């Protein structure tokens, strides 16, 4: 992946130069150069996400597919590494407690904590996606059976109905998060309720009243582009990194089932004239539009694989509803193609979801570590601890 390539060389270059220890007034030219490089890399990486160029290793990923999200997270990890290299590595920590950084860094760290909760909520959301995958797999197994009979069609229908119900009740304000608790008390009668037939087990992982939308709003509330003298230099870098953090988290929330997402599609508060942000804004608009469309219908998220399951699922349900033995050949062919597509989607999910979950955990740990590094740097400037005795 190209992102990792230039990350390596960039970090190398920075660390060599940093070793020469920058003086307090800072090597200003170098700093400007760093900043320009950082902006360029950010712009390039997001441009690549917006319109992925197929390469030899990876065919072009569709927007919002599992592999695309994994690439998005790669971009985040690269940007974070570069950001830290510029801001912390070899720098006199006293520089990061000067205004306006004394305000901006704590704000960034606050966003980081919120991002951690989003990561956890998303990890939990992937559990739901795995559940959809299992249901789809049952349908695939049934419909792949030959000869093709009433029994298997019924089996597929049951699984598909559960799938569609699970995916659509997912989004009714995330209410299923609390509903599952009452399942036991209602006993097996639960099979007749809204979520038709399937036991739904998706607990909240980040607290009862937690809301992804609120979290995203809180992260972007005080996100203001630096102006005047601040609009270059370290303040801008903190701003860029914050923007990346918010937009990556936002994209994940929009694609993967997540607790409480009403009103998620909102204005992305980044000034359009900033060149590094062009692709990011375009990406946001593109996903935002999709979200608005889907939000009305109510869907579990924009994840490409999920949308595919939904579309194929509905079509196959229609088929099973009208199925009469024996199947007409023409229709059967069409169904075979759809089943194959569904099987292929399931395969991609099987391959991608666990690594995605791991990668989210990696992002989680990275954010924790970056936060700790900043806190250490801040701490070392605070009280220069009098070494006693």
């Amino acid at each position, binding site marked *: 992946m190209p992102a990792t390539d230039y990350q390596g060389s960039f970090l190398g270059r920075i660390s060599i130069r940093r070793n020469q220890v920058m003086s307090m007034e800072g090597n200003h030219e170098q700093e400007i150069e760093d900043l320009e490089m950082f902006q360029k890399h950010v712009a390039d990486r997001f441009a690549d996400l917006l319109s992925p160029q197929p390469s030899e290793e990876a065919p072009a990923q569709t927007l919002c597919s599992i592999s695309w999200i994994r690439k998005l997270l790669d971009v985040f990890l690269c940007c974070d590494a570069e950001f830290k290299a510029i801001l912390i590595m070899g720098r006199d920590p006293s520089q990061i407690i000067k205004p306006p950084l004394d305000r901006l860094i704590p704000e960034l760290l606050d966003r980081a*904590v*919120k991002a*951690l*909760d989003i990561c*956890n909520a998303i*990890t*939990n959301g992937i*559990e739901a996606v795995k*559940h959809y995958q*299992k*249901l789809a*797999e*049952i349908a695939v*197994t049934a419909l792949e059976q030959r*000869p093709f*009979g*009433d*029994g*298997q069609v*019924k*089996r597929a229908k*049951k*699984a598909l109905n559960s799938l569609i119900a699970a995916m659509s009740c997912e989004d009714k304000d995330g209410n299923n998060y609390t509903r*599952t*608790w009452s*399942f*036991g008390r209602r*006993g*097996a009668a639960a*099979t007749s309720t809204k979520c038709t037939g*399937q*036991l*739904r*087990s998706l*607990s*909240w*992982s*980040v*607290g*009862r009243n*937690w809301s992804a939308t609120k979290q995203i709003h809180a992260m972007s509330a005080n996100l203001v582009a630096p102006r005047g003298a601040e609009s270059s230099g370290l303040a801008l870098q903190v701003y860029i990194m914050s923007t990346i953090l918010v937009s990556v988290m936002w994209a994940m929330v929009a694609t993967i089932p997540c607790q409480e997402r009403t009103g998620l599609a909102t204005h992305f508060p980044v000034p359009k004239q900033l060149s590094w942000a062009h692709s990011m804004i375009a990406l946001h608009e593109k996903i935002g539009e999709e979200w608005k469309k889907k939000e009305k219908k109510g869907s579990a998220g924009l994840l490409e694989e999920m949308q595919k399951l939904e579309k194929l699922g509905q079509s196959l349900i229609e088929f099973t509803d009208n199925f009469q*033995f024996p199947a007409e050949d023409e229709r059967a062919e069409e169904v075979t193609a759809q089943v194959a597509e569904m099987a292929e989607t399931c395969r991609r999910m099987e391959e991608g979801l666990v690594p995605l979950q*791991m990668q989210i*955990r990696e992002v989680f740990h990275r954010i*924790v570590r970056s*936060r*700790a590094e900043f806190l250490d740097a801040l701490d070392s400037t605070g*009280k220069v*601890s*009098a070494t*006693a*005795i």
Partner: protein
Amino acid sequence: MIWDAGPREVSDYLGAVDEVQTLIESLGSLSMSENGEQKELLYQVDNLLQVAMSRLEEELIHILVQHKQYFEPEYVSFHSCQEDVVYDESMVSLEDESVEEASRRVSSGSVSGENIIDLIDPRVIPDLKAIANAMFASNYDPEFCEAFICARKDALNEYFILLGLDIFSIEDVLRMKWSTLSSEIKKWNWAMKIIIRVYLASEKQLCNKILGGFGTVSSFCFVEIARASLLCLLNFGEAIAMGSIQPEKLFRLLDMYEVLDDLLIDIDCLLFEEAGSYIRIEFHELLRKLGHSARQTFLKLQNAIVSDTSMKPLPHGGIHPLTRYVMNYIKTLTIYDDTLNLLLEHQNMEYTNSVVESEIEQELSSITFCPLACHLCSITSALECNLVKRSRLYKEDSLQHIFLMNNIHYMVQKIKNSDLSLFFGDEWIRKHNGKFQQHETAYQRATWCSVLSFLRDDGLVSNSVFKVTCKERCRDFTAAFEEVYKIQTQWSIPDSQLKEDVLISTSLKVIHAYRSFIGRHHISDKHIKYTADDLEKLLLDLFEGSRRSLRNSQRR
């Protein structure tokens, strides 16, 4: 429900399912000639099978829900009166008793050893197995697993509620006020033991009982059931490990460390298969983080002591809250000595790489040379330095000495009368006994030398003025004594034994000098305000911590 109707119905039903399966097999094995009738029959049987499987799935869910059982642990209150060792800036002295209370560790509760319980009524296990066998035989295993996983996951979620476990976001935890956080940590420690050692161990066994015959299915299902809940427990730990470093957190951090350290072997057992390995690794990683956090907190204590300064002297020269805090704190630490030594040794390995040092360490393997002992010594040294600085805030030399005497004496007592003595050793105690005694002597000199100088004979030469001078001197002495009385009755020596010692040696010196002065110069009672006995009684009022005056008060 069939399974509610009785064993006969059940066996009839299962028998019928079996027949259907056999029929499908035999029909399938017949090569599919274009025999329309045969084909027709197969479709019908297939349809029948679907109906049966669907029914079995419902029965399965019904049984899982109706026959689930919970292990209800003894109720434990985490909001008890136990207080943590907290340094109260408002100088409200910390009652030693409450600290002793606080040092009680989270009770290990009733959870120990192998605690497998029945999460499902054992009488229905054969039924569940029968359903599993029937569904797996007809390739309906995905349906079985999904239903089973969902039902058991729900049961586990409900168990969290039953245990009163709230799930917090990391943001919540980081913002929590300490008292709440402390009780949540205690709850976590308690819940971890129950959930890992009892509940999940039993869950794993349940999976094995029902699905043991189907290869890796059993462990796959177990991990699916447990993962989300384990991640919740894990994330609470992560939040604690990334929280700010505050001295009062140390004991809770050490509690968590010890609990997790103890449970890791169980976690490894539960998740040794591939499916759960990533969570297993996360828990190992969490242990490392908690250890790091605990170590940092401990190492910060010394800095906290050094930087704890004040511009105002402690009134009355008694025992400073910082002294109480630090001593009670390190006294509590001794119950964590093994863990702390481990963590500190680990730190030494991280930061020093000399082989020689470790050899020396081995030779001096006595407890007084363990890493914890070294750190404790430097903590008390830091405290001493801090106290010396604080003593300089007093204007009177005498009070400086009283303050230092009081505080060092307190330190010595705390160490002598607890396990701390093992870490500090006799040599330390001897040295510090000497120290506070020196301050006592210095006090005697600073206060009483000048007062007693009035009673000395040198300079009294001429016989004619002699009588007058003696009376004057006596008066001056009385005035000086009253002044001391007025001031030093406010001062305080909280330890009664120590006070008695100070008063006895004062009394010996003062009364002796006074009595012999009066006797030597034959001063009549008319000219003296206080008899020697009066003085002796008055001396007993010193160091009571409440101001008294002799001039205006009515005597006798």
